[in-house]
Structure formats: C-alpha cells, structure tokens
C-alpha cells in the first residue's frame, strides 16, 4: 500500500510567531497544528488552524507550509513551499 511508505508527524503551536510557550503549549492554548507527511523523497508540512475545544484541524485554513526535497536538500534548510504553490503536485496534496 502506498500508505506504508509514508510517515506522519505533527506538532502543536500556540501562535504563528515564537513565544514563551511555543515549545510546550497546553491544549487550551493550541491554535495551530503542523501536520507532516514524509516519504523517501520529501517532507511536506502544513501548519493549519486547530480548535482545541473539539480537537479538529481546519485544513482550509493554512497558516504556513514547508516542503523539502531529500535529494537536493537532505538537511531541510531550503523550504520551497511558497515557490511550489503553483505546482500541480503540491496543489493536489493540499
């Protein structure tokens, strides 16, 4: 299954900009969740609006994104998300 070849991770944030509780926000303070999918080729992350009261993420409300390609950028230093927004493949992921 193609899903066998993907690893997911996620990380919560209280705000768009770093602040004192960005590392370990309490549930009630979580406003954004960063969801990542990884394949052997890339890591793609969207930071989306999160509602802690009902544990839901709004994938139509994307605050920021990251996209790194393993072959050209193994250390994940060059986020090409914004440059790739018009790319057909990225659009289909979103």
């Amino acid at each position, binding site marked *: 299954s193609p899903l066998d070849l993907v690893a997911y991770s996620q*990380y919560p944030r209280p705000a768009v900009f*770093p602040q004192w509780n960005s*590392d370990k926000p309490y*549930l009630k303070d979580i406003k954004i969740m*960063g969801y990542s999918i990884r394949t052997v080729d890339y890591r793609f*992350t969207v930071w989306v609006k999160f509602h802690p009261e009902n544990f839901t993420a709004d994938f139509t409300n994307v605050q920021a994104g990251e996209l790194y390609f393993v072959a050209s950028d193994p*250390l994940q230093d*060059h986020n090409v998300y914004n440059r790739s927004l018009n790319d057909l493949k990225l659009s289909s992921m979103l």
Partner: protein
Amino acid sequence: ADGPNVLFVVVDDLRPALGSYGDDLVKSPNIDQLASRSVVFQNAFAQQAVCAPSRVSFLTGRRPDTTRLYDFNSYWRARAGNYSTIPQYFKEHGYVTMSVGKVFHPGISSNHSDDSPYSWSIPPFHPSTEKYENTKTCRGKDGKLHANLICPVDVADVPEGTLPDKQSTEEAVRLLERMRNQNSPFFLAVGYHKPHIPFRYPKEFQKLYPLENITLAPDPQIPIELPPVAYNPWMDIRQREDVQALNISVPYGPIPVEFQRKIRQSYFASVSYLDTQVGLLLKALDDLQLSNDTVVVFTSDHGWSLGEHGEWAKYSNFDVATRVPLMFYVPGKTAPFVHPGEKRFPYISPFDSLSEVFSPGVQATELVELLCLFSTLSELAGLKVPPVCPSSSFHIDLCTEAPSIVKYFNFSEREEDGYSEG
C-alpha cells in the same frame, strides 16, 4: 503464552547519533553490537517530538489525534478512549509485564501510575535519584552547586552516590534474574533518562570527546525561508543556570560557538554513558542465558536538534527532532542462536580504543513509524496482531493505526540457521 520474552529499551531524546547509524564520532559500541545482531531501521520516525504524546502514541499504537494528547496534561483513557497498550496486551496474553525507569512519561498523562495496573503486572520502578535531576548538583568553577545544562559529575559526589540510569539498569538486571526460572514469559520495558537534558553524566565520559574534535551543526543558521511557526525557541535549556549566564536573546538569539561545542560534547558523552548502561543490561541477558529466548527492541521517543536550524531541542517537525533509532533483535532470525558457552552481547567499554568495529547489521531503509511497535512486537511474539483501526477508533479498545513491519525484516531471504533448525 509460550512466545519469546521481550526486552523493550526506550531512550529519552536520542537521535540516531550512534555508530550503527553512521556517526563516526559517537562511541556507542554496545548499541552497535546490538545493531549488528538486529534489523536496523534507518528511516524510523516518531509521531510527535515531545515525550508524553510520543510515548502514549507508540505504547497505544494510536496517533496523537486519537489519543488527544498533545501536551502533558491528560490521561488518554479519560479523555479519548480506553485504548489498550502494548504491555497491557502482553499481560492479557500471559506475560509478566514490568516497567523500569521512564517508559510512560510520569504524571497525569499516565494517570500518575505509569498506567498501572492496566499495563503492568508489578508496580513500576522509578529510580530514587530521579528527583535530583533538575536540582543543583553540578559543581561549578566557583566550587558551588548549580542547576546547569552541562553537568558532568563525580558519581561519588552526587546525592545517594549514583545516577537514575545506573539504578534502572541494576533494577532491570534484578528483575531478569527473578524471571529467569519463571514459567511465564516476560515483557520488560526499560526506560533510560539520558541523553535528555540536563546532561548529567559521569564526568569521565567527557574525555571521550575532546572539545577540539567536536564539530558544529552543518547548518546552524535559522533558514531564511522557515516560517516562524515552524521554529521552536528551545525555552527549556534557557532556564539552566549556565545558559542563563550567556544572556542569549529570545527567541532567535544564537548560542555562542564555544558553548555550542560544549552542548554537543555533553550530548555525545551522555549517549556513551547510556551505551554502557545498555551494554550492562544486555550482558545480564547473556549471563542469564536469556538471549536465545528474548526479542530485544531498542528505540527512542524522538530525536533532538543539536544546533541544526538554530535549534537546541525537540519540539518541531524537522527530521532531526522526529527521526529515531529503531532496531529489533530476534534470536535465531536476525542472528543465530547462541551456542552453549558463547556470548551474544559481551560488555564493551567505550574507553577501550581497540574495541571491535561492528558490521552495521541488516539495514532496512523503508520509512516506518514508531506507531508500528504494537503490531510488530505482537507479531514477533506470536500473538494475534491487533486489527488496523478504522478512520475513527475512539470507541475501539484494541486496534492499531500502523501495520506490523515484520514484512521488512526479510526473514525468508536469510540463510537458515542450522543450530536453530536443530
């Protein structure tokens, strides 16, 4: 139950800074020896790079969105669902299950009981010296004691004259001795504390890593195109006395280069100290003639950024924060059975410069998640593999969100071991 025993070793904040993962600097001969007799997953990832959510996730086989634990402040059975855990499943199938050290994150997230009695047959063990980890036990240049980040200690000089991971090893060995002649198989989980901060380790390990040999992260700058929300300001290390003294600006201020070297030196020294504890534990398994009957799994709750992207913590989605070591030793499968008189895991001192260089073991490059541990260990133990969860599984007590990865072990492609056949 008549399956093999399981020794589950989970480390705190260990990225794959190990010889068996290609790190030339780090001295980890005992873990490398285990790797050489194991299947080693090169691309294994945690589901969230912080302790409690990650541990609850892999111990229940559910993602954080299903455990509804993203912080440290709730118990999944109360908030999300009455999900079974790996040890609970083994316990219900006739295993004696035991917890030593930090397996579950302590506190509310495991009901202040490490999920006892659901998960464990006997009360979990915690080292008595855990309580000193964040206290002032680091001797400064002024001769006084401080709560530093970098904290090499003279073990004879610290409270109770020992350290938490040493106590955990001793207790785990005691339990192995007790289980040796029992009729029931055991599931022993051992959770080591290091290399989690503070870097409080026996000072002799610092000598393994002369400062002049310590390199910096290859990409110590915060990437220009990194969205601010993706950056973590590593607040916990800023609270340590030695870091506070550096007056680093929040949130982006860089750590002075020489101190970066010291952090990396002490992280690596902590890994080598951890390696000795793992070595002593595996030696005991050998000495008690249990290495032919015990599956060993070794992993970590998540990684840690050692300066990459200007970060010094977990708390992110970067690979350095989420990638973990993951290896499985399956006697008779990943390595031949041990013949009488042979040793599978002799202890190796990291101070022995002539120590053997191990082959890296069987490498598996498939992308896998820590979530797979539940189904994988069940399969390896010969238990029925829990079903894969439907898309919503809050009402289902027993299922997992990731399939077993035993299919990647490629057992069928290996040579049959004559001794095991016999």
